[in-house]
């Protein structure tokens, strides 16, 4: 990318870039192909003119065919028409629309955090952000995991989120359901810095159940996306999002993941970028820990404590915390409570199963479960009781 001279030239370049980003089915790989060896202004002009060089570069990307290029050219032609009518440079209307929503744009190669992207194999061409700009001085840890987490994963994600936040470390995550969202929420609640990277336009909340979290991250932390306003969530955009999470974090922690989850993509992307990957051990009977246990077997560092993560970052641990624990509550006192917990160790159980396994009446069992639930040892969802620690 050429050096930017005056403010106007910078605006023109940004306008062209945002116009390219907004093309349908335009993803990071295609943008990279388009912008290799030419800046955005040149790229948009050449694409508009249908130059052979640009076409060849695009055709080398998977899934790009002539009809798609034709659609893009049509789109660009109409953008130029709009620009001609309004008298503003191409993309000025899109820039204004983003500015109205309070969204800032960041060209990673030029931004303050440029060193993060310097050696990245697949840097994003343009990032859309809301909230505070990424501060390279703040240490960053990625906390990711399955969307279908267990009560155990929920507890660990919560404690990691709040523990990291308390240490002033930013939690980087994907704002998905499950581990990602839980860790972010805990970090926010503790008042720590958070960076959320999403796989759709910043106005397209996905999943919709995370709307509040999404807004809170945008208000108190950093919300980032590679996609312009209006871009809907699409399946291919999530792995692409995961590579940004991997690039942004200095250490990646996988809390819970199945053996073929999306988190594994983040792990691969982190390994590619030489980011250390750590995993939280889980029961070998739990499908939700199959991926993390495999990572441990392959030599990943285990996370048994927030301090383990802080140590990997080279940060001092928490002096006040009891050593080697995520903060356990007092062990259950009643023998029945212990028996129930033992049964729950093997996996989720229904009330009926517990009653038959422990051989107690429903009344006694119910009071035991109630004690365990209130003390945070067990949790219940959809009629299934799980050990939460």
């Amino acid at each position: 990318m050429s050096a930017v001279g005056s403010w106007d030239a910078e605006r023109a370049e940004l306008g062209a870039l945002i116009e390219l980003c907004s093309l349908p089915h335009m993803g990071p790989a295609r943008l990279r192909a388009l912008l290799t060896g030419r800046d955005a202004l040149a790229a948009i002009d050449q694409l508009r003119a249908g130059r052979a060089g640009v076409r060849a570069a695009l055709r080398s990307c998977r899934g790009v065919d002539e009809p798609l290029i034709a659609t893009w050219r049509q789109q660009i032609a109409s953008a130029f028409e709009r620009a001609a009518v309004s008298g503003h440079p191409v993309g000025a209307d899109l820039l204004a629309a983003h500015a109205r929503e309070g969204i800032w744009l960041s060209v990673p190669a030029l931004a303050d955090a440029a060193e993060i992207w310097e050696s990245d194999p697949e840097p994003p061409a343009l990032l859309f952000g809301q909230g505070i700009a990424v501060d390279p001085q703040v240490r960053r840890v990625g906390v990711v995991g399955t969307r279908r987490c267990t009560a155990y994963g929920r507890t660990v994600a919560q404690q990691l989120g709040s523990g990291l936040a308390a240490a002033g470390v930013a939690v980087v995550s994907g704002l998905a359901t499950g581990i990602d969202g839980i860790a972010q929420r805990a970090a926010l609640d503790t008042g720590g810095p958070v960076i959320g990277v999403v796989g759709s336009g910043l106005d397209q909340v996905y999943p919709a159940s995370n709307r509040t979290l999404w807004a809170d991250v945008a208000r108190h932390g950093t919300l980032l996306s590679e996609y312009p306003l209006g871009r809907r969530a699409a399946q291919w955009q999530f792995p692409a999002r995961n590579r940004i999470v991997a690039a942004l974090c200095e250490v990646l922690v996988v809390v819970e993941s199945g053996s073929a989850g999306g988190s594994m993509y983040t792990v691969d992307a982190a390994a590619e970028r030489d980011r250390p990957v750590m995993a939280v051990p889980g029961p070998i009977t739990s499908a939700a820990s199959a991926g993390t246990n495999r990572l441990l077997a392959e030599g990943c560092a285990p996370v048994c404590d927030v301090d383990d993560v802080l140590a990997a970052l080279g940060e001092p641990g928490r002096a006040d915390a009891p050593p080697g624990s995520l903060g356990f509550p007092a062990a259950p006192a009643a023998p029945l409570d212990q028996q129930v917990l033992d049964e729950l160790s093997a996996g989720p159980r229904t009330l009926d199963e517990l009653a038959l396994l422990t051989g107690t009446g429903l009344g006694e069992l119910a009071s035991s479960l109630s004690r365990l639930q209130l003390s945070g040892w067990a949790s219940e969802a959809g009629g299934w009781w799980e050990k939460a620690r």
Partner: protein
Amino acid sequence: MLATATTATLVGVDGHVVTVEVHTSNGLPSFTIVGLPDAACREARDRVRAAVLSSGLDWPDNRVTVNLAPSGLRKGGAALDVAMAVAVLAVTEQVPAESLRGKAFLGELGLDGTVRGTAGMLPLTAALSDRAVVVASEAYHVALAASPRDVHAVRTLSQLASVLAGRAPWPDPPPVPPQPAPVPVPDLSDVIGQPSARRAVEVAAAGGHHLLMLGPPGAGKTMLARRLVGLLPELSRQCAMEATRVQSAAGLPLPNGLATRPLLRSPHHTATVAALIGGGTNAIRPGEISLAHRGVLFLDELGEFAPSVLDAMRQPLEEGAVRVSRALGTCSFPARFLLVAAMNPCPCGQAGRPNSCRCSDLVRQRYLRRLSGPLLDRFDLRIQVRPPDPDQLLDGIRGEPTAAVASQVAAARERAARRGVEANVELTGSQLEQFAPLTPAAHAALRERLRAGLLSGRGLHRVRCVALTLCDLAGDEPPIDAQRLAEALTLRASVGRLYAPATAA
């Protein structure tokens, strides 16, 4: 010439007295019925005339007009046939006009003069309780249940004519039908390895608490519902009358007269609002919720019912009665029933088991969203029913049989009756304060749950009510201790907070 006879017609589940006036005058032979008869009633023309002639009696060869008074009331059904026939006999002086006085006639006529029973014999007879009611033999025991002044049973029109003419005494009433061999009641001891389901069924029967069962097909939900009916006590005379009235009006068979056992109604999930709540085009008929009055309404596959149908049930659930308004008029039906519902929590059959259920949250939520929060809130008991473990099935120890539990249920209901209600579910908040005090420990446990956001204010009341029923079942006196309370909480909310608005999400 003029003669009158008294009968009754059915509006909803109530009988209304109708006076049949027959007038003959000179003119071409004809037979007209006026006074808002419906199709079945208008067809009485042909039945009555044929029955009179087949009985060897004379039909007037001049102009016959029948008026059904009050003329503003719609008359439906064939129960007015006999009254029309005897009034015609009176106007032609084949029976003395005075013989009809103080009597009422209910029944349909066959072309050969046979007198038949019709739907609604109980409410019809009840409306005529100040006179001697003449009914078909087959309807004698139902009519008797309404305890009118006197009931006479006849088989044919000619028999009736002879009695009225003073040529014969009233025929002997038909013998009490032999008690049918007691239908083998499905026994509770068949429930193996499902302690919470079993417990919930007992509690539902004892306290009248509505029960929601979540579980995959084949987990035994229908089986549990059938056993619940077996646990319910015999209906009191008052309740039996109310229930029989509706069942009689709907034309359900009532071989023994009064229905003393609670009924199990299980409509299919394609049922319409009219089928469930009541309604209809030709007459307003009671719906399934009224047929299940004082009994059990079992809705299998609750999630498959149309949401509008389910929401229509909310108000009757609260009030114990339903008013159905149609162009034909407005009817009030009793609808105090025990609602038992079953549904599948998700399509995969793993019933949401963490880590095993392959259904996406979206699929599960879409399925559960069909149930409105207010309806779910009516269920005091919400339990998971899972197929029993094969080992348990093969060598499981059988629990208490129905007979033993039924006596506990009856005792619990007696305690409720001492509080002035039929079952604990009817207790109001202030009554609970009075009858269901909590021990300090239970109080503390509740406070902790409310603080932790695991229970809402609305849920608090219902949990206390279930805990009181648990006390009643065990034969303990309140105050309610922490263990009872924990059990009540578990029985109420073990379906999970996703589905249970009573526990804060």
